[in-house]
C-alpha cells in the first residue's frame, strides 16, 4: 500500500490491569476526535488518486428514455463515465435482504436522488462538472407516496416482477412485507373493557444525520482485486454484496474499516462501495468518493415514517384488556431493512406491557419516497411513540396517574409476549418508572436572574422571543422496549481473533475483529475484556478488516453483547492454552497447577486463592497463542407469517424517561428543560460509555420530537430540505440536562450479564417529550416532530 498516507492505524491502549470490565477507561480515539486529529474516511488519501462523483436522478419516478455521456467523456481530466451498461457481470443489483437496488439505474428511476451514472476525474470539481454534462432524458411516471396511492386500483407498481420470498404472502406487490400477530381474542376482550381509547399517530421521516459523510477509497490491486477503505457498519455484509457485482471472489475484495463519523443505522446499506470499486477497476487508479452533506441526504436510507392506528381497552381498575393496532411503515423505493423493521414494529407494538389479547398488523410499503431502512430503534421507535400516547390517554380517561397506570400493566420477568415468547431475564419496567419519577424536579423559572431573563434558559433561546411571557411547564413520562441483536432466526454470530505474546518482557494481547467502530466505543470495551480475561495491561486493537471473520453489524444494540462475547470467548480459549502450556512447563513444581482454578492476573498465573504460580512471560517465552473463533448467542426463530408466534428475539432492553419541558404557548416554541432517564443495562462494562450512549440516544429522540424531519413533497416525492440549513438537529442549547440512573440487573444468558444499551433510550425519549408538551398545552398532538404550527393552530 505504498503511497497511502492516511489509512486506519492500530490503536494501542495501555492501562492498569484493573482497567478491565466495569472501569470507565477512556476511549483511545476520544482525544483525537475532539482535537480534530482523528483520520475519518473523508481524510483518506492516495497519491495519483481520482475522484468519483455520482450523478443522481432529479425526479422520483420516471422511465429513462436515454443517457448521453459523450460530452462528459470528452471533458479533459475525465477518466471514466459509467452507466448501467458498463456493469461487468450479470449481478447488477444489491440489497441487505432483497437484492432489489440497482447499482446504477436501469431503464427507470424509483426515487429522487437515485444513482444513474458515475464519473471519475482527476479533480472533484472536474468530476462534478462532467456529471453535469451527462444528458439524461426522463419520461416521468405517476408517483406512489402513501398507502392510498400504493394500493389504489391501477396503482403503478414500484417493482414489477417481484420474485423475493415475501411476495407470496403480501396482499399487494407494493407491500414489501406484512407481519400480523394474533393472540387470544381481541374482539371478545374488547367487550370486557370499561374504557376504550383509539388514536391515529404519525411519525415523521428522521435522518441519522451522522456527521461524517459517506466516503471511501478503492485501490486497484495487482492481482486484479481491489482494496477498499470505507466507513461502514458491517464489513462482511458489504463484501457479500460488492464482490458479485464486481465479478470477483470475496478474497479479492479486501476491505478495511476507515474512520467512521457516526452511523445510527445509516451505513447498513451500501453507498459508494460498489461505485468506487467499479471506477477503480475500470481506470486502474485509486478512486476516492466523498459525499457532501446534500448528497448524503440521498446517499443513505432514513428512518421509516409511519402511520399507526391503535385501540386499547382497560378495565375500570386499570388493567389493559386488549390491543388492536395497525402500523404502516413507508419503506420508500427499495426494500433495505424494511422486512426486519416490520418484524420489530409488530412484535414490539404492545410495548413493555402485559396484554393477552391482541390483533396486530404491521406492513412496509414500497413507494417512490426516499428508501428507508435501519435507524437506531428500528421499528420499535415508531410503535413506542404511539403506545405511550395511548397509555396517557387511557390513564386520563380512567382518572389514574399515568405512571401508576403504566406500572400496573408493566411486564416483568416471566411475562408472556404476544409472540408467545417468555421474557426470561429481568424486565424492571415498573422499577425504571419509579426511579425516573423519584428524581428531583429541576427548579421552576430557571431563566430568572437578578439582571433579567437569561434567554438561554427559555424557549427560543438566543433568538430572544420570550422573557417568560406565555411560558408553561409540562411533565411527561414514557417507557419502551427494544430487542437486542438480530432476530427472527438470523444466524447472528461474531468472530474474534486474539493473540497473546510477550513483548519487551511483558505479556500483551492483540484483539482483531471486523467490528465497525462507529463511535459506540467497542474498541474501548474489547481492550477491557482482554484485560479482564488475560490479566494483561497493554492491549492492541487491530484495525477492523475482512482478513478476520465477520463481526456482524454494529447495530441492534448488539456489538458489546455479540462481538464483546466473541472476544471474551476467544480470550477464554487463549487463557486455557496459556495455562495448558504452563502446566506442561511448570506443572510439576506446584500441585495447584493440577488442582486449583487458575487465572491470569497482572501478567501472572495465579490460583483463585491468589497464590502466584508463574509469570506469563515465563510460560509463553517466544511462543504466541493466536486463535480466531466464532461465537453465537442462543438461537431465535422466525415469526409465523399468519400468527406472529415464535421465539423471535434474543434479549430485551428497557429505558424510561421523564421529560420536563417549557412551552411558549403563544409562539409554539419548546425548551426541553430536562430529560431524566433510568435504564437497566445488565452490567455496565464501561459506565462512562454507558452514560454517553444513554445521553446520545436520548438527544436523538428529542430531535425527532421537536425538530428533525425530512420533508418530502407529496406531489412529486422530492426531498425539500436536504441540508443542515433546513434539516435541524439539536444544538447543545437544545440539549437538556440528562440525569441518568443506571440499573444493573444481570441477564444470565448474556456475557457478563450485560444488556445491549444503544437504542432503548431513543425510544422513550420522544414520547416523553410529547407527553410533556401535551401536559403543558392540553393539545392532543398525534404527530412527531411537533412544529410551532401544531402548537399555535397556524
Amino acid at each position, binding site marked *: 500500500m505504498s503511497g497511502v498516507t492516511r489509512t486506519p492505524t492500530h490503536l494501542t491502549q495501555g492501562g492498569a490491569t484493573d482497567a478491565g470490565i466495569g472501569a470507565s477507561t477512556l476511549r483511545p480515539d476520544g482525544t483525537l476526535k475532539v482535537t480534530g486529529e482523528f483520520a475519518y474516511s473523508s481524510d483518506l488519501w492516495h497519491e495519483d488518486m481520482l475522484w468519483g462523483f455520482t450523478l443522481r436522478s432529479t425526479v422520483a419516478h420516471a422511465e429513462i428514455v436515454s443517457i448521453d455521456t459523450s460530452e462528459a467523456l470528452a471533458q479533459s481530466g475525465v477518466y471514466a463515465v459509467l452507466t448501467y451498461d458498463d456493469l461487468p457481470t450479470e449481478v447488477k443489483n444489491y440489497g441487505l435482504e432483497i437484492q432489489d437496488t440497482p447499482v446504477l439505474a436501469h431503464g427507470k428511476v424509483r426515487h429522487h436522488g437515485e444513482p444513474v451514472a458515475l464519473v471519475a476525474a482527476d479533480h472533484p470539481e472536474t468530476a*462534478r462538472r462532467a456529471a453535469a454534462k451527462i444528458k439524461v432524458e426522463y419520461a416521468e411516471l405517476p408517483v406512489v407516496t402513501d398507502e392510498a396511492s400504493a394500493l389504489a386500483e391501477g396503482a403503478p407498481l414500484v417493482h414489477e416482477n417481484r420474485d423475493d420470498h415475501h411476495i407470496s404472502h403480501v396482499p399487494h406487490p407494493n407491500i414489501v412485507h406484512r407481519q400480523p400477530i394474533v393472540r387470544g381474542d381481541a374482539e371478545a376482550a374488547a367487550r370486557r373493557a370499561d374504557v376504550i381509547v383509539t388514536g391515529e399517530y404519525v411519525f415523521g421521516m428522521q435522518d441519522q444525520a451522522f456527521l461524517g459523510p459517506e466516503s471511501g477509497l478503492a485501490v486497484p490491486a495487482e492481482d486484479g482485486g481491489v482494496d477498499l477503505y470505507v466507513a461502514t457498519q458491517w464489513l462482511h455484509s458489504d463484501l457479500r454484496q460488492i464482490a458479485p457485482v464486481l465479478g470477483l471472489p470475496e478474497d479479492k475484495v479486501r476491505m478495511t474499516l476507515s474512520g467512521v463519523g457516526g452511523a445510527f443505522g445509516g451505513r447498513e446499506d451500501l453507498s459508494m462501495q460498489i461505485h468506487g470499486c467499479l471506477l477503480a477497476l475500470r481506470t486502474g487508479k485509486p478512486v476516492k468518493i466523498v459525499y*457532501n452533506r*446534500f448528497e448524503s441526504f440521498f446517499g443513505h436510507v432514513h428512518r421509516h415514517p409511519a402511520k399507526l392506528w391503535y385501540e386499547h381497552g382497560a378495565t375500570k381498575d386499570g388493567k389493559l384488556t386488549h390491543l388492536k393496532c395497525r402500523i404502516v411503515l413507508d419503506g420508500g423505493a427499495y426494500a433495505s431493512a424494511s422486512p426486519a423493521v416490520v418484524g420489530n414494529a409488530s412484535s414490539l407494538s404492545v410495548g413493555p406491557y402485559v396484554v393477552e389479547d391482541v390483533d396486530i398488523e404491521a406492513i412496509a410499503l414500497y413507494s417512490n419516497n426516499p428508501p428507508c431502512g435501519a435507524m437506531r430503534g428500528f421499528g420499535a421507535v415508531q410503535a413506542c411513540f404511539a403506545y405511550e400516547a395511548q397509555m396517557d390517554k387511557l390513564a386520563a380517561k380512567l382518572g389514574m396517574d399515568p405512571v401508576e397506570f403504566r406500572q400496573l400493566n408493566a411486564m416483568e420477568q416471566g411475562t408472556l409476549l404476544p409472540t408467545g415468547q417468555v421474557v426470561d431475564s429481568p424486565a424492571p419496567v415498573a422499577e425504571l418508572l419509579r426511579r425516573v419519577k423519584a428524581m428531583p424536579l429541576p427548579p421552576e423559572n430557571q431563566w430568572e436572574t437578578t439582571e433579567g431573563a437569561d434567554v*438561554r434558559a427559555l*424557549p*427560543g*433561546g*438566543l*433568538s*430572544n*422571543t*420570550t*422573557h417568560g*411571557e406565555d411560558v408553561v411547564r409540562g411533565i411527561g413520562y414514557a417507557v419502551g422496549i427494544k430487542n437486542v441483536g438480530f432476530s427472527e432466526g438470523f444466524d447472528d454470530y461474531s468472530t474474534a481473533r486474539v493473540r497473546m505474546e510477550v513483548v519487551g518482557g511483558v505479556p500483551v494481547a492483540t484483539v482483531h475483529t471486523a467490528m465497525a467502530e462507529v463511535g459506540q466505543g467497542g474498541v474501548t470495551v474489547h481492550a477491557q475484556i482482554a484485560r479482564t480475561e488475560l490479566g494483561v495491561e497493554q492491549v492492541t486493537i487491530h484495525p477492523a478488516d475482512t482478513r478476520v471473520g465477520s463481526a456482524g453489524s454494529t447495530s441492534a444494540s448488539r456489538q458489546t453483547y455479540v462481538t464483546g462475547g466473541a472476544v471474551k470467548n476467544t480470550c477464554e480459549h487463549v487463557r486455557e492454552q496459556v495455562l495448558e502450556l504452563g502446566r506442561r512447563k511448570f506443572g510439576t513444581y506446584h500441585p495447584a497447577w493440577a488442582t486449583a482454578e487458575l487465572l491470569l492476573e497482572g501478567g501472572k498465573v495465579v490460583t483463585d486463592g491468589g497464590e502466584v504460580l508463574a509469570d506469563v512471560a515465563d510460560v509463553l517465552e517466544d511462543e504466541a497463542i493466536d486463535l480466531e473463533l466464532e461465537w453465537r448467542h442462543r438461537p431465535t426463530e422466525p415469526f409465523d407469517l399468519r400468527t406472529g408466534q415464535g421465539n423471535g428475539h434474543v434479549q430485551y432492553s428497557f429505558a424510561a424517561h421523564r421529560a420536563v419541558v417549557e412551552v411558549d404557548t*403563544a*409562539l*409554539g*416554541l419548546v*425548551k426541553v428543560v430536562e430529560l431524566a432517564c433510568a435504564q437497566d443495562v445488565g452490567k455496565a462494562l464501561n459506565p462512562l460509555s454507558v452514560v454517553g450512549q444513554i445521553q446520545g440516544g436520548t438527544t436523538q429522540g428529542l430531535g425527532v420530537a*421537536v*425538530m428533525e424531519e425530512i*420533508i418530502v413533497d407529496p406531489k412529486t416525492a422530492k426531498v*425539500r*430540505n436536504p*441540508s443542515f*440549513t*433546513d434539516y*435541524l438537529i*439539536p*444544538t*447543545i*442549547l*437544545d440539549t437538556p440536562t440528562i440525569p441518568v440512573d443506571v440499573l444493573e440487573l444481570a441477564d444470565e444468558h448474556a456475557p457478563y450479564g450485560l444488556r445491549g444499551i444503544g437504542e432503548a433510550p431513543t425510544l422513550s425519549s420522544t414520547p416523553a417529550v410529547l407527553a410533556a408538551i401535551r401536559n403543558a398545552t392540553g393539545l392532543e398532538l398525534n404527530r412527531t416532530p411537533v*412544529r*410551532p*404550527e401544531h402548537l*399555535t393552530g*397556524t
Partner: protein
Amino acid sequence: MDFLRPGSWEEALAAKAEHPTAVPIAGGTDVMVEINFDHRRPEYLLDLNRVDDLREWEVGEETVRLGASVPYTQIMENLRAELPGLALASHTVASPQIRNRGGVGGNLGTASPAGDAHPALLASGGEVEAESVRGRRMIPIDAFYLGVKRNALEPDELIRAVHLPKADGPQQFSKVGTRNAMVIAVCAFGLALHPRTRTVRTGIGSAAPTPVRAKAAEEFLTAALEEGGFWESGRPIPPSVAKQFAELATGACNPIDDVRGSAKYRRHAVGIMARRTLGWTWESYRGNERSDRCA
C-alpha cells in the same frame, strides 16, 4: 472561477469596475454555502479580506460608521450601547465561529429576507455607504431592499460601511426559529424607540419578499404615544394599543409557506413578537431612560 485579491479599497473598486459580475466575499457566510451547494458559479470572486478598514468602526457624535466586514462578534461585544438592536440580532446569527467571520455587509449584499441584521437596521434607520470608481453615495436603508435577494447596488458598486444613528432609546430584536440556537429565521421582528424624535421604527424579516417596515404599525404607535402623552408620562401602554400595534405589524407581512414555516404561522408570530418587543422596550424606557432623565 478567478479569485481577485485586491490589497486596498481602491484596488477593490477598480476590480469591481473591471469585472461587474464579480461576487464580493468577506466572511463567506452566504457565498461559500451557495458555492458548496452549486447554487452559484461566479465567474470571479472578489476577496475583500485584505481591505483592513472594512473591519473598522467609528463612533461619532450622532452616528456609528460600521465597516461592512466588522464581524458580528465585535458588534455584540463593543457596540451594545450604541446599536442595541443590531447587537441583539448579531447574537442570533448562526454559531460563534460564523459570528467571528460574518458582518453586516454580507447580509446587505445578499439581501435575503431572512438576513438577521435587516430588521434591526430598518428599525434603527440609517444609510448604506456604497462606492464605485464613479464615486460614493449614501443609500437610505429604507430604499435598499428592492426584491427577493435584490438590492439597490449598481453592478460596479461595493458596500463600504453602514451609517447608523446611535440609539436614543431602547431597541429590541426577536426571531423565531425551530431550534434554540444556530437557526435561520422563520420570521423576525425589530423595534426601536426614538424618544428624541418621538417616533418608533420597526423591521420585519422573513415574512415578505424583502425585509420590510411595518409602517402602518409605526404610524399608529407614534400617534398613540404622542396623543396620549406617553413619552412624558411614561405610563404603561394600554393593552388595546399594544394589540392594535401587533395586528398592524401582522398586516405588514406578506409571507409564503415553505419548509421552515407556514405563512399563517409567520403572520401570527410577527404579531406576538411585535407585542412582546413593544412591552420590553417600553418597560425599559419607563425604567431606565426616564429615571436617568429625572436623576
